[in-house]
């Protein structure tokens, strides 16, 4: 483990045409950490994740994993290192859950090579870790949103990445599924030691489950650290442009972010 940065983003600039989305992003994530990436809608969280995977090229700056530059890696090498669960993954029609998860073995296979016993076993374990093995022979399109999300996480795990990026994995899920997903990610981290960066909207949920929080605002990382250091009421109010107050979680004391009504009721 140690204190060295495992995933290191330095001086990343990215613009869609004229619109500067990210300017000078610096971020260091230690091996095996789980970091929540928060920030207002449109702050560029998804863009940052896509830049880290290397499918999107930055105009300036670089990302490295364990000292290796992402830009220097071949697509297959990159895919063995980093996996992303996008916000709305495709549901390929007619594919069973197991077939969908097996797709993630692609970076580990040579041209014309077939999935072997190890590929099947890795995929099975990925599904067991996410409690989706019971869905294996069922069509993905028949599953509910929360069940699908776990299958997509299983697919990313079957890729055997060192770094797992998740783009709002708890969006549109009820509190039971939200907790289930976060607990599952905690379990996955313990079992595999994978390093995680999770884009999230729910600050309280992020603070409760993530060891570190990075705040993305106006194209920069404005704060990074332990949740109680980062999520102060001044900072959150400023970043989101709305008054909030921060309380402590009755169970473990992590920050709880509460909205504040501008006009008192009555």
């Amino acid at each position, binding site marked *: 483990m140690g204190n060295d940065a495992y995933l290191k983003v330095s001086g990343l600039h990215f613009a869609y045409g004229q619109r500067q989305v990210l300017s000078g992003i610096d971020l260091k994530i230690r091996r095996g950490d789980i970091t929540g990436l928060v920030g207002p809608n449109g702050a560029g969280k998804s863009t940052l994740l*896509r830049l880290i*995977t290397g*499918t999107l090229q930055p105009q300036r700056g670089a990302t490295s994993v364990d000292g290796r530059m992402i830009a220097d890696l071949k*697509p*297959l090498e*990159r*895919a*063995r290192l*980093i*996996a*992303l669960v*996008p916000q709305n*993954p*495709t549901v*390929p*029609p*007619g*594919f*069973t859950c*197991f*077939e969908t998860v097996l*797709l*993630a073995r*692609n*970076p580990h*296979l040579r*041209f*014309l090579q*077939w*999935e072997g*016993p190890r590929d*099947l076993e890795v995929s*099975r374990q990925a599904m067991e870790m996410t409690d989706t*093995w*019971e869905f*294996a*022979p069922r069509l993905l*399109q028949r599953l509910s949103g929360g069940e699908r999300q776990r299958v997509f996480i299983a697919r990313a795990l079957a*890729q055997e990445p060192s770094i797992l990026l998740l783009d709002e994995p708890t969006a549109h899920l009820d509190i039971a599924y939200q907790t289930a997903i976060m607990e599952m990610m905690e379990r996955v981290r313990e079992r595999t030691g994978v390093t995680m960066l999770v884009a999230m909207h729910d600050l309280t949920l992020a603070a409760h489950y993530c060891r570190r929080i990075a705040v993305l605002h106006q194209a920069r990382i404005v704060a990074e650290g332990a949740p109680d250091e980062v999520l102060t009421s001044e900072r959150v109010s400023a970043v989101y442009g709305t008054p909030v107050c921060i309380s402590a979680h009755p169970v473990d004391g992590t920050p709880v972010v509460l909205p504040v009504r501008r006009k008192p009721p009555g």
Partner: protein
Amino acid sequence: MGILTWRRDAGAPGGEAAVRTVAFAYPWRRLVVGALVVVLVGLLAAGVGSVRIPPVALGKILASRLPWVNIDASWPASWDTILWNIRLPRVVLAGLVGLALAVSGATYQGLFRNPLADPYLIGVAAGAGLGATVVLVTPALHFVSGVNMLPIAAFLGALLAVTAAYGVARRGGGLPLTTLILAGVAVAAMASAVTSLLMIRSNPDVRPLLSWLLGGFGRGQWRDVLVVLPYIVLGFLLMMAYGRTLNLLQLEEEEAKQLGVNVERAKLLLIVVASLTTAAAVSVSGLIGFVGLIAPHAVRLLWGYDYRSLLPMSAVIGAGFLILADLLARTAVGSGELPVGIVTAFCGAPFFLYLLRRSRRM
């Protein structure tokens, strides 16, 4: 279904059986049985026609062709000629074209992630039609030093149309597939317009062209088989090799890229190969609709969506279907024959409508 086989536990009473292990089992048996059935159907079809050759005699005639077999000819000499020079090349050609259209159709459907895509989607049909028309309305071009120019012109026309659509759609190292479809539609409209213009301006007898457009194997010879064989076999093998990639292309391009797929290269290769294969088929058979559409869908319904089994099984079904359709085309009406395109459309259109109804519910 598919390629994976599941070994199930008996499971807890009342509960769903737990899936314990899973293994790959390539559907060899299904494939071999299917191929044998197609060969058998082809041979039987070769015996049917205005001159009926009984299966036993047919077997003997074929066996006598083998180098180390000596069988006394106890059949009319004309049977040998009919079987060897007329019926068999025709059956083999129908099978090859059926295979080519079905596999290209499956590939196009996978590539465009659209179940209604067929091999003629991006201008192959209209381009081939234009090429054929140019030859038909220019008597000087019918035969150049003894070579029938019609298939060659159709082949070139098809490739030209696809290349034009591809060139228009390509931008900045990427190839947006929706743009490619739209460009294909526009190129096809242009080619059809020129085709109509040529027909109106020059030759009042459009029947030869019409009959070619509707497709058929009436003029099929061994030489045609030899000409298209390399394209179709090579195209088939290349598309098969990209089976796993086609599975991955069922995801969004970005997701496929994150799984290490070189999406742009795969798209380019698959479009080129599927178009070449289709163009080769079209050049010898004319435009035969619906085979490329319904064969892959029948396979999906029966045996699942994994392209590594979908492609070879589509080949089997496509070949068998077109051999039977051609048999029907040349035997259904007393004298003369129907264009095979009419037969495939007649069988294919209802199936297509059924698929449309079905896909709306999904």
